[in-house]
């Protein structure tokens, strides 16, 4: 189908879909209205389980099975990327070229910000049940924080601090820990991913039962997985090339 025909077909479909969407938007509850049934139920359940961050409670306590599915998608996608981007028979890995000079100011800022960012990421993961944050966000902060070393330093420095094999195992350990806690919940409480630890009082660090532990498992998995994912793309650009390339 030519490009023009594709565009014409899309415009016809959009002309049909547009008015349908317009009607639907007038039928659903108005923007900013005060009646939210799910909100009342979810907030009440979260406060009963002594979890201050209701979104974390929903993700890791009330609908934790959903999160197990999401992180399985994550593991599968990272595996798929690793398979698709490995060097094929015509290519091999080279040593990364010596990179140009980095401004001294950039290098200093990088050295200062790297430990700060990693600690911030760990804090976001650990306090996911109290403040906005959690495993998913903290994992992304950890993974991107590590790459400050690449932006303000060299690729060799990043490579030294990034054992891909161990991080791969770490991702699997995080995913397995999530499932393991689910099975433990089944053994204790009779339901998969049952919240089996004592709940504590609202607002303390050790509250909300298994929610902080599941946060740590997911944060570990997402952090390791994202570093592995970005490593595949960086390797494609920097170190993998056809055999016989002049050095």
């Amino acid at each position: 189908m030519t490009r023009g025909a594709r565009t014409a077909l899309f415009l016809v479909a959009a002309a049909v879909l547009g008015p349908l969407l317009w009607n639907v938007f007038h039928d659903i509850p108005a923007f900013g209205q005060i009646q939210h049934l799910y909100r009342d139920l979810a907030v009440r359940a979260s406060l009963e389980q002594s979890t201050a961050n209701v979104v974390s409670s929903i993700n890791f306590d009330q609908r934790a099975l959903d999160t197990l599915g999401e992180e399985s998608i994550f593991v599968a996608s990272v595996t798929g990327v690793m398979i698709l981007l490995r060097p094929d028979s015509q290519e091999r890995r080279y040593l990364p070229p010596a990179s140009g000079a980095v401004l001294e100011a950039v290098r200093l800022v990088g050295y200062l910000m790297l430990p700060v960012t990693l600690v911030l990421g760990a804090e976001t993961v650990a306090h996911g049940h109290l403040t906005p944050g959690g495993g998913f966000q903290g994992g992304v902060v950890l993974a991107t924080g590590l790459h400050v070393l690449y932006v303000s330093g060299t690729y060799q420095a990043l490579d030294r601090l990034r054992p891909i094999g161990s991080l791969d195992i770490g991702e699997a350990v995080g995913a397995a820990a999530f499932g393991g806690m689910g099975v433990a919940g089944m053994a204790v409480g009779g339901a998969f991913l049952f919240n089996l630890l004592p709940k504590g009082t609202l607002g303390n660090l050790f509250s909300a039962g298994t929610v902080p532990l599941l946060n740590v498992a997911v944060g570990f998995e997402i952090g390791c997985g994202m570093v592995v994912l970005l490593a595949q793309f960086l390797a494609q650009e920097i170190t993998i090339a056809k055999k016989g390339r002049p050095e």
Partner: protein
Amino acid sequence: MSVYAYCVAGWVLLIGSFGIVRSRNLIQTVVCFSVAQSGTYLLLLAVGYERGGVPPIFSGPGTPAPKHVVDPVVQAMTLTDIVVSATVTALLLSLAIQIHKRTGTLDPDQLRALKG
């Protein structure tokens, strides 16, 4: 005016799909796909919004009354979706790299039938 946010969500979805249809490069297709997904996030959060509401966090200073927070269920859905769809985008991009290696082009109009 109360449907303005929903209409912008629908617009973002449609303009993302338009970008997919008109793309000349598989990488542009992936970018426009990502834009279209963001339209659904906007729609979800707009459904859960309450005028004058506060975030659904019950710790620290200024703990709100339980009836006054915005809907946390749609936020939970959107949150995991954002991170996971980034990895699916990564999978699509690696497919694009492989397609370029095999066929030498990223133009959707030149990638015709499946070759055995």
